[in-house]
C-alpha cells in the first residue's frame, strides 16, 4: 500500500518521519537518503567533530530506531525524478515508489568557488566531507578559510583552537556581515583576531593553487584550504517535476507545494513569513517545520484542517570559545541597540524595526538569548521603552508579560 515517502534524511526529513510515527502507528513511511550514514546531526560537524581526530558522529536517532519504529530507511538511495501525475518517485536503480503523500526534504548543497582551482577548496557539509577533511586538518600547519559566515568562522576558530595557523578571508568589512548586527560582527572579528586569527577583510579570492590562495591583497600561503561560502536549495527534482520554486521550493503556510499531496520542509522550503517569503537554514526550522508538516499530513489523511507554521526563528554558532545565539530574524536595516552591562566578551544587541523588537543577538549571554526567544514567541509588540522599564532585564520582562 502506498504511504508517505520522504526524500532526504537530514534533520527535517527525520523529524517528519519520527513525528508521523508518533501520531500514526500504522502509516507506511519510507525515508530515502542518498548518504551511506545513518542520519546524523550536521551542526556539530563544523562546530566540533571535524577538529576531533576521532571524528565523532551524533546520530539523530539510535541505530535500531528505524526498524523498531517500522520506518523503511533506505540509505545510498538517490531519487532521479518525481512523477506527480502518477504519484510516484523514480529511484536511481529504476525502481518506482508510489506515494500518497510526498515530502521533499532535500536540503541544500554547498556553493563552490567560481575561480580557477576552486575545486581545491574543501567544504564541510556531510559526514563524508569531514572524513576526508579531518585527517588533513590534523596534519596541516597553515589553513586558509574562505568565507566569513557562520561555517567559515566556526571552522577558522576551531582550527585555531587546536593550534593551527589560520587565515580567514572575508569579502565584506567584518565577519558575519549578513547574519548578525554590525556591532556583534565587529566584536567577533576583534575577538578572533585577539586569539591570533589572521582575518583579512575586503579580500577577494582570485584563484587557488597547490600553495595557497591568490587574492586581490596578495598571495596567502596555506597547505589546506577550506571554503564556507553558503549553500543553495537542492531543488532540481522539484523543478523537473514543475513545482513552483523561487530561492527554494515554494510552500504555503501548511508546507504544501504547488502540487497536491507534495510537501517540502527544512532548508529547501521557502515559506510565507510576515508578508514575505523566507528560506531558513537552521535546526529550529527543520525541527519545527518538520513537526508541522507531519501533523498536516496526518490531517490530510484524516480529512481534517491543516495548521499554519508560524515560527520564531533561532540560530546558534559555536566559534572556539565564543557562543553566539540569535533569536528572531535579524535585519541589517533595523536599529541596533546594545543592552547595558556588557563586558568585552559579552554582548546583547536588540534589533528594533519601527520601534518593535524583531530579533536579539547575543554573545556568550545564554540567559538573554533564551529570554529573547520566549519574548518573541509571545508575538506581542515589545519596545525599547518596555525593556528599559525592566532595567534592561529581558527575563524580568518575559516574566511580567507572561
Amino acid at each position, binding site marked *: 500500500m502506498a504511504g508517505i515517502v520522504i526524500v532526504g534524511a537530514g534533520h527535517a526529513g527525520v*523529524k517528519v518521519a519520527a513525528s508521523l510515527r508518533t501520531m500514526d502507528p500504522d502509516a507506511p513511511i519510507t525515508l530515502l537518503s542518498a548518504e551511506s550514514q545513518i542520519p546524523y*546531526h550536521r*551542526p*556539530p560537524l563544523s*562546530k566540533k567533530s571535524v577538529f576531533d581526530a576521532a571524528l565523532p558522529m*551524533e*546520530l*539523530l*536517532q*539510535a*541505530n*535500531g*530506531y528505524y526498524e*523498531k519504529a517500522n520506518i523503511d530507511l533506505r540509505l545510498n538511495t538517490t531519487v532521479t525524478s518525481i512523477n506527480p501525475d502518477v504519484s510516484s518517485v523514480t529511484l536511481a536503480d529504476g525502481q518506482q515508489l508510489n506515494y500518497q503523500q510526498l515530502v521533499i526534504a532535500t536540503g541544500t548543497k554547498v556553493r563552490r568557488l567560481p575561480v580557477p582551482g576552486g575545486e581545491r577548496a574543501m567544504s564541510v557539509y556531510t559526514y563524508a566531507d569531514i572524513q576526508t577533511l579531518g585527517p588533513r586538518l590534523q596534519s596541516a600547519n597553515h589553513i586558509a578559510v574562505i568565507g566569513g559566515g557562520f561555517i567559515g568562522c566556526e571552522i577558522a576558530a576551531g582550527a585555531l583552537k587546536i593550534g593551527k595557523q589560520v587565515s580567514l578571508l572575508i569579502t565584506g568589512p567584518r565577519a558575519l556581515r549578513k547574519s548578525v548586527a554590525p556591532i556583534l560582527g565587529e566584536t567577533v572579528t576583534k575577538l578572533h583576531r585577539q586569539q591570533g586569527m589572521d582575518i583579512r577583510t575586503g579580500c577577494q579570492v582570485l584563484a587557488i593553487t597547490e600553495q595557497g590562495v591568490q587574492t586581490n591583497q596578495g598571495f596567502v600561503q596555506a597547505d589546506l584550504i577550506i571554503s564556507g561560502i553558503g549553500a543553495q536549495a537542492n531543488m532540481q527534482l522539484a523543478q523537473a517535476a514543475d513545482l513552483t520554486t523561487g530561492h527554494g521550493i515554494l510552500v504555503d503556510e501548511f508546507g504544501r507545494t504547488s502540487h497536491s499531496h507534495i510537501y517540502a520542509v527544512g532548508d529547501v522550503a521557502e515559506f510565507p513569513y510576515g508578508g514575505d517569503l523566507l528560506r531558513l537554514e537552521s*535546526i529550529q526550522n527543520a*525541527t519545527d517545520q518538520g513537526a508541522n508538516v507531519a501533523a498536516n499530513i496526518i490531517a490530510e489523511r484524516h480529512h481534517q484542517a491543516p495548521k499554519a507554521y508560524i515560527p520564531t526563528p*533561532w540560530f*546558534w554558532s*559555536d566559534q572556539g570559545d565564543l557562543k553566539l*545565539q540569535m533569536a528572531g530574524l535579524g535585519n541589517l536595516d533595523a536599529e541596533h541597540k546594545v543592552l547595558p552591562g556588557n563586558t568585552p566578551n559579552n554582548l546583547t544587541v536588540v534589533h528594533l524595526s519601527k520601534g518593535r523588537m524583531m530579533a536579539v543577538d547575543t554573545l556568550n549571554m*545564554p*540567559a538573554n538569548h*533564551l*529570554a529573547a526567544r*520566549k519574548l518573541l514567541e509571545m508575538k506581542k509588540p515589545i519596545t525599547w521603552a518596555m525593556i528599559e522599564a525592566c532595567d534592561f532585564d529581558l*527575563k524580568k520582562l*518575559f516574566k511580567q508579560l507572561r
Partner: protein
Amino acid sequence: MTQVTFTQTDGTQITVEANNNEHLMKLALENGVEGITGACGGSCMCATCHVSVDHVSGNLAGPGEMEEEILDMEIDNPLATSRLCCQIFVANDLNAIKVTVQEG
C-alpha cells in the same frame, strides 16, 4: 565504567554501561530511550532531553548557566532534580546514576 539507568515514561528501565566523557543524551539515543529527542544535538539550546535525577552514586557536577536558564524558562514545572541530560557527563568519580525521562 559508569552504570546509567533511564526510567522511561511507561516505567520500564534501560540500564547501560557508559564510558568517561559520554553524555546521557547520546546514551539515551543510542539505546533507544523513549522520550529523549535531543533536537539541538547536545548544544544546550533546547529542552528535548529533560530528565529528573533520581539517584547518584559518586559525584555529579551541577548545571551550568545556560542549562539552568533553559530549565527555568522552557520547562513548565521543573523539578528540583530536573536536568538536561545532554549536560550530564559520565566521569571517573560518577559510579552510577539513575534518571527518569520527563516532558520536554
